[in-house]
């Protein structure tokens, strides 16, 4: 039995339901002749091994309770958008949804991390037909949603690659270049957003 106990299957089902709900939000937008909400979605359930590692790192007891309550990112969904404003549209729709409550928001777009990381993080409390760790039906599961543009996503992949290479000769220099690159990508995102807005003003 792993750290998720009897709930591992439910986690996958909740994730599928969450993806389905987000896809539905997109379909509604498209049906109303609005641009699509996002470019693509990716998702994962954190592996039991890395969840165990996380609980140990955070000093939580290695229990299913810790994994599903203290940690809120067992389920993770990333919404990758074309433009910055699409992120705002997604957020507005999520805030209005009746199948989830927003527990926490972290805006790393307005307040980029010092290394240049940009993304918008939201923790959702999702209501589901499945029993939760407290024995409730309908059950409540947490999920972390990361919203970012394609440019921010590419940047994060590159930064991730660097983080896991341990024999980089000059990490400070590479870090500086990554930061500069993040600022340039942010500049392009803003530029594309502005052009899009100027195009739409002429409608």
């Amino acid at each position: 039995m792993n750290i998720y106990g009897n709930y591992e299957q439910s986690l996958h089902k909740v994730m599928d339901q969450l993806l389905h709900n987000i896809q539905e939000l997109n379909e509604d937008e498209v049906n109303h002749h609005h641009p699509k909400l996002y470019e693509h979605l990716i998702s994962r359930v954190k592996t039991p091994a890395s969840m165990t590692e996380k609980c140990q790192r955070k000093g939580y007891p290695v229990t299913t309770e810790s994994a599903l309550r203290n940690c809120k990112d067992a389920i993770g969904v990333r919404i990758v958008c074309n433009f910055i404003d699409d992120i705002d549209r997604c957020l507005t729709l999520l805030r209005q949804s009746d199948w989830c409550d927003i527990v926490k928001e972290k805006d790393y777009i307005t307040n980029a991390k010092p290394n240049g990381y940009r993304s918008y993080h939201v923790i959702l409390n999702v209501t589901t037909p499945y029993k939760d760790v407290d024995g409730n039906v309908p059950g409540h599961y947490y999920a972390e949603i990361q919203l970012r543009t394609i440019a921010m996503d590419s940047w994060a992949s590159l930064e991730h690659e660097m983080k896991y290479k341990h024999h980089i000769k000059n990490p400070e220099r590479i870090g500086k270049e990554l930061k500069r690159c993040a600022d340039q990508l942010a500049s392009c995102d803003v530029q594309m957003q502005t052009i899009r807005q100027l195009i739409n003003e002429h409608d």
Partner: protein
Amino acid sequence: MRILLAEDEEQLARVLKLAMEKAGYTVDQVADGQSAVDLAKENAYDVMILDIMMPVKTGLEALKEIRASGDRTHVMMLTAMAEVDDKVTGLDAGADDYMTKPFSLKELLARLRSLERRNDELDKDILQFGDLTVDTNEQTLVSNNSISLTSKEARLLQYMILNANKDLSVDDLLNHTWDDDDESADPDDVWFTVSYLRRKLESVGSNVVINGEKDGPFKITE
């Protein structure tokens, strides 16, 4: 500063070289126009001081050749000729400044100092305004967050900040931000650049705003 001095009167050349070296400048001295052209090709100078009447090639001929090669160094002409026409010819040929002999050494050194101050100011890449820092060298805009600027955005923003709280017309901005070589620049360029800057100011979380409608005038305020 490194200075090229082209002067064929031996006595005067020696005095000038000595005085400028004493003021801390590095001076290369030649005595004819051709040598001036040759050295200008070889070395990077901050200032060139050219006498007009020189053997082999006159200062004017040398100047024209130096400019034709694309060299934009500050050039000061020295001459005994005090006619207005000569000054006009020199300035039109690409000179930046003019001194008529006899001139005082003090004045020459004061002009060099003034030039040095100006160059230093232009090198000052970091501009502060309200909660904003603009680094025109790195081309970044920093407040709560940071973002890159294009060269046009950086120049436009710099000009607006140096003239903060003043109404600046579209023409004004066009003339100060787009080079003469960019003949195709039009008021739309100003509008797009202002639009980008507005979003960027917002995205770094600054309180600084650019006011104005599409046809201008524009004004930057805290």
